[in-house]
Structures are given as structure tokens and as C-alpha cells.
């Protein structure tokens, strides 16, 4: 992994929730145009770390993040940086599909609207269509854009949410267990989508499913009890891990 290829550089990040330390000195480089998977047992800090990358931890009372997080060489863990600007660059998809209780169109158009990305309504229509196409949802919803987003099925909702994230043209997309609430078929579609999106975005995905990590990611990082135990190319982690803990977790001996 060369320096020039990495999108996100994290150095010595500690996260505290009140007095409790949730992450201990995590350092990792996340490459561009690839999928990086965070795996680990529940409560290991992988979601916490994910939320550091777009400063969503700011919204949690008593959360404190220390250390250096750089995106394209720019420090983002800086109180003077407006998280609003950062979050336009770093999109996020949550565990449970959470479309706004508005129409499908408005769901996708919301981001471009608040960031002023479209000059005209035609342009906005275009952004919405492109985003829905990229999320593989256009064919299914093109004739009912005015229907409420909440009327879609779970898998469709999750793709709608991905389209919503894509619509503001982010550089990084964070996904926090995006398939945990979906059935295997919907999961397969999302995984296929993630694979396509990799060409244009840097994707970070938190997952509980080792198979999913193996299927979609090029890089894998294993977290345990707030420590980043090991990270590297997915193939290496799954076939030839350096650490015993990683081996045990992958083999299903704990977690």
C-alpha cells in the first residue's frame, strides 16, 4: 500500500465515551477506489471508528476523539473544521434503512438541494436519475418517484439510501452493517452494488459477516476490544493472518 494510493490516513486515534476508552491508538491507511471491510466482534469499536471518519461522534454527548485523521492529506479531526462540509464529502449508510418520510425523489434530491449542487430543476432531475441508476434502483422506481420512500421494501430502501448518499457526489462512502437487516437476495444485490461503486468511490464497510467481507472487500481490518489487531489485503487476512486472535475470530472460535 503506497502513500500516494491512500485516501484516508489515520494516526493514533483514541476515542473516549466519557471516562470509557472505546478505541486505543488506531492507525490505518484506507486506499482509494477500493472496499475496506472492518470486522470484529460486537463492541470492538469498529462502528465507533467508522463514525470518526465523518465526525458523527460529534453528535454523541461526551464523546471525545483524539489523534489525526486525514482525508487527502487534510486534517479532519479538527474542531475548527465544519463537519457539515466533511459529511458532504464522506457519505454514510446506516445499519437500518432510514429513508426520510418523503417521496423517493425528495429523498435523493435532499442532499443536492441543501448543498446547492443543482442550478435548475432539470439538473436536479438528472442528478436524481443518475444516483438512482448508480444505486441500481432506477428501473424499479422510475415510474413512481413521487411515492413515499418508506413504501419500498427493505432492500430497495437500503439502495435508496445509498442513492441518497451518492447524490451529493461524496469521495468516501461509509457503510455501517448495511445488509444486517436484509434477506440474502437483497444482500446479494447490495454487495453487487458495492462492487460496482468501488470504481469511483472509496468505500469503508463495517460487517459482522466474514463471508461478506471476503466477497466485497479488497482490504480488511480486524478490531478487537478497541484495538486494531491487524489489517491488510483481504486475501492475506483470511488465508494467512499474522495474529492468533485474527485466526481464532475468522475460524469462528469466538465472537
Amino acid at each position, binding site marked *: 500500500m503506497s502513500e500516494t494510493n491512500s485516501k484516508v490516513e489515520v494516526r493514533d486515534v483514541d476515542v473516549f465515551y466519557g471516562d470509557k476508552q472505546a478505541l486505543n491508538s488506531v492507525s490505518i491507511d484506507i486506499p482509494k477506489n477500493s472496499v475496506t471491510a472492518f470486522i470484529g466482534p460486537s463492541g470492538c469499536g469498529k462502528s465507533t471508528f467508522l463514525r470518526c471518519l465523518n465526525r458523527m461522534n460529534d453528535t454523541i454527548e461526551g464523546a471525545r476523539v483524539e489523534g489525526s485523521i486525514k482525508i487527502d492529506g487534510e486534517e479532519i479531526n479538527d474542531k475548527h473544521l465544519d463537519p457539515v462540509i466533511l459529511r458532504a464529502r464522506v457519505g*454514510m449508510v*446506516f445499519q437500518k434503512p*432510514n429513508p426520510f*418520510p418523503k417521496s423517493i425523489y425528495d429523498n435523493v434530491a435532499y442532499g443536492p438541494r*441543501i448543498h446547492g449542487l443543482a442550478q435548475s430543476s432539470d439538473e436536479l432531475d438528472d442528478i436524481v436519475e443518475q444516483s438512482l441508476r448508480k444505486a441500481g434502483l432506477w428501473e424499479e422506481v422510475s415510474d413512481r418517484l413521487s411515492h413515499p420512500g418508506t413504501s419500498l421494501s427493505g432492500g430497495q430502501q437500503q439502495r435508496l*439510501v445509498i442513492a441518497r448518499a451518492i447524490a451529493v457526489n461524496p469521495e468516501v462512502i461509509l457503510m455501517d452493517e448495511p445488509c444486517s437487516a436484509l434477506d440474502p437476495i437483497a444482500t446479494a444485490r447490495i454487495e453487487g452494488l458495492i462492487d460496482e461503486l468501488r470504481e469511483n468511490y472509496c468505500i469503508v464497510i463495517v460487517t459482522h459477516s466474514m463471508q461478506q467481507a471476503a466477497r466485497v472487500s479488497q482490504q480488511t481490518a480486524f478490531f478487537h476490544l478497541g484495538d486494531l489487531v491487524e489489517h491488510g489485503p483481504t486475501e492475506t487476512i483470511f488465508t494467512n493472518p499474522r495474529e492468533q486472535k485474527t485466526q481464532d475470530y475468522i475460524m469462528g472460535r469466538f465472537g
Partner: protein
Amino acid sequence: MTESVSKPAIKAAVEARLAKRYRSEARFRSLGLAAIFSAVAILVILLGSIGMQSLPAYTANEIFLEVDLDRDLVDPQGDGSEVSLREGSYARVLQNAMREQFPEVRARRDLRQLFQLYTALNAPRLMDEVIEDPSLVGTRYRFRMPLSDDMDLYLKGELLDQSETRMNTALRAEEEGRSIALVSDNAGFATLLENQRAALRNEAVALGASADELDLRVQAAGDEDVSALVDRIANLRERQQGLLDWADAEDGVFRLDDTLPSVIVEMAGGAYKLDGVSVDGTRATGRAVVQPESQSADSWNLLVVDVPESRRRSSDNQLVWSRVLRDRGVIEEHTNRYLFGNADSREPELAGVRGALHGSILTILIALILSVPVGVFAAIYLEEFAPKNPVTDLIEVNINNLAAVPSIVFGMLGLAVFINVFGLPRSSPVLGGLVLSLMTLPTIIIATRAAMKAVPPSIRDAALGIGASQTQTVFHHVLPLAAPGILTGSIIGLSRALGETAPLLMIGMVAFIAETPSLDIEGMTQPATVLPVQVFLWYDGAERAFEPRAAAAIMVLLGLMISFNALAIYLRHKFERRW
């Protein structure tokens, strides 16, 4: 669970418990149903009784009086100017018209009673109508005015118990010195006589019972001085004997006086008040209250008013005149236009809810304009933006405390601050609205915060995750989702304010206000009262006729609240459909 417990045993245990569980569920369900039914029943009884009570207020007996607008009386200066018309003697005009109806009424005492069939406040009303249309001067004009409240209730059968018997036998009137003798050849007065005698005997029995009771006390008294008691017993016995003698008079005339039920005979468009009946039931003596058209008739009405004249405010004459005027078509019962067209009045027949309705609308409008925005924004700030520290904790606790403060305290605050410090006009809607908005604020803040807390955090995360600022998140996503809850909370708070009396008493809205405030900016500083206060004032009023009007005012208040709530439900649905 140990191995020794066999599967059938577990099944039996579960089944035993199951029956118990079903029973407790059934019990709970029937309790719930009973609670709902009793609540509905109480509501129906409450509404029904108030509705029934208010019924007499919705119609009014009105006198359609042909008045002679004599130029000399109404236009003393003779130039038809407003100044001149204002000096006119309209009370005299009305009195002349009433005398025209009953030319036989001469005595001053009787005339005074006649003029009490309407309130003197009708003279200025007539003046207003003449000033409105000066061409009426010199013409005969059909003036419409409400009958006095007591007579109105009497004609509706609400004031006095009476029996009215139609007699289809011949009756003729004969002059007999200064009084009139009514002769019924087939003893048409026999039943009447019997009833009156029975009433006397009952009264005598009651007196005798009182005397007997005192007798017992005298016997038990022993050494005490009982001479006063003995005197009272003697007095009672004497009165008892007097009544019995009166009732049992076998020859001559049975005397009717004003301690007995009043007896009135109506025949041929006229009416006689009886003062005696011959003991054979064929003759009665009395005086003409209204002269009949002829001296004999084939059928007549026997009217017995149970309450003796000496024990009521309205005289027999007034009852008779009202009935005759109704028969002549001068008095007609119409929808009560005074109830919804007028403000408060000292006279129930002219009193209306319009002033209080306007006052309520203006007051609640001001409370709405002030308390909803301030309350909602305060809640948003506290919920979304305020840092967590001891100061905000203190503010939170105090908002919750404010919601529990008795409303009259807010009235005292209004008096001390808004009137004494800021000098706002007393008893004005703007002042009432300010006080009520203070009272409503904590309710709205608490409801808004609860509604915002109920918005799922995933929506917040979604908005923030896409780069919306905190403010955008709140206004684009949280508030619209919380809107139904906020609306409900605000409406509940304002409905309570609408029905509030206590704080308004402190700021002078309890005053008697006979003017209707206009429904505009100006009206907000004019003296006003509100519906609940009006209800309070009317129930307090001495006149019986205020009671149905108070009930009608409650119905109006309830109607206002229901339309208020209907609006809220409509808005809720509208907001919810958008998503």
C-alpha cells in the same frame, strides 16, 4: 426445571395457569369496557343536562308592538335632526302603545305592572331604530322587542306550575255592583271548589302536625318554662281551626284570596280574576282583567296558577296580559336573536353571548400568536441546541414547575406586571391573551419537546450523515415529523386557556361589559369578557332567565372548543398525509 418433572406435568401446570390468565385478561377487558362506557355515559348525561337546561334560551317571546311615532313625542324640536330625535320621549311612545292594547287599565298600580311586561331598555333601542331611519317619524311602526324575562319563561311553561282546563259549558257574566258575577248553570266551578278546599284542609293538617309535635315537647319539658311554646301551640291550633272553618263553609261564598292558588277564567277574548265561588259551584265573583268581547260564551278556560300571587314576583294581571297578547298575535315566539346578537345586559331578555364570544376569540388568538411560536422555539432550542449544564437543567425543572402553577397565580402576575408596570388596558383581550399565553407556554414547551424526542434518531442520523446542518436537520426533518404532536399539545394547552376563568378574574375581565369588542386590532384593547367568565356571571345572576342563558353560553363555549379541536384534527391529517 428438574428432570423429574414430566412433560405431561408441565403441560397440566401450563394449562392451569392458562385458565387463570384467560380469566385475568377477560377481567381486564371488561374493566376497560366498563370504564369507557361510564365515561361516555357521564359525558352524555353532562351534555344532555346542560343542553336541556339551555333549551329555553334559544327562543324568545317577542312583542310586535304597533307604536305611534308621534312627531310631538319623538321629535320635540320638530326639525328631524339627530339631536332632536335623541331628546324624544320613546318610553312614552311604548307606554302609549301598550295602553292602546289594554284601554281598560287605568289604575296607576296596574299601569306600572303593564309597563313591566318589557324592560325600559327598549326605549333607547327604539330611539336607535328611529335615528337609523328618521322617515319613521310621524308613522305607525311595528316595533319588535323582547318580552320581559319572567313572562317569557312563564309563557314557555318554565316559571310557574299551572293547570288549564277547557270547559265546554255555557258561561255568562253579570254586572253585580262593582264586581262581576260569572254564572255557570251546570256547576262548572264545582271541581275547582273541591280542589281549593282540599288544599286548605291539607294545610290545616300540616299545621295540626306542627302543633302536635310542640305538644310532645311541652310534655317532656318537666320544670322548664314552657309558656312561649304553649302560646305558639295555641296560635297554631287557632290558625288550623280558621283554615278548617274556611274550607268547610257550607253556605254562601267560598272566599279566594292571594294566599290561595290564583284562579282565572278566560272567555271570549277577555279574562276574569276570581275572588269567590258559591258553595254550590254555579257562581263565581271576580273582576275583569281584560274586557271580553261579549258577556256570554259557550266554552271557557279555567286557569289555576298553583303558586299564590302573594308568593311570586309577577302579578296575575301580568300573566293574563301576556296570555292575551299571545292570543292576539302580538306576542310571538321566535329564535332568540338577542342571544347571539347582543353583548351582556342587566336584563336577561336582552343579554347575549356575542360580546363574550368575540372576547374569547380575540383572547385566544393573542394567546395563540404569542405562546405557540415562543413555546415551540424555546422547546427546539432546549431540545436540540442548548448545552447540557446546571443552568439549562434549572430552566428545564422550572418549566415543568410552571406547568403545575395554579392558574390564578398567572392572573396575579398579570395584575402586578402587565397592568401595574406596563400599564396595559384593564379587562382587554390583549391582557387576557398575555396572561393565558404565560399559562399555556409550559404546556406547549413540554409537548413540543416530547414530540421531538419521539422522532426516531435514525432520521436525525440520516440528515446529519448527508451533510445537513443541525438547523437544517431540525427544520427539514424533525419538526415536520413532530408537527402533529406539537399541534396536539398546543391545542390542548389553548383549549384549557379557552375555558379558563380564574386568572381572568384578577385582570378585570369579570366586569359587566355591555359592548361587543370588534374582531380586529382595535378590539384587542377594548374592554371585553370571555365565555367562561360570562357563564360564571350569569349563573351568579339573580334572574331565573339567566340560567338557561348560562347553559346556552356553555354550549357555545363547547361548540368553540369542538371546532377548535376539529381544526387540529384536520391539520394533523393534512400534515400526516404529506409523508
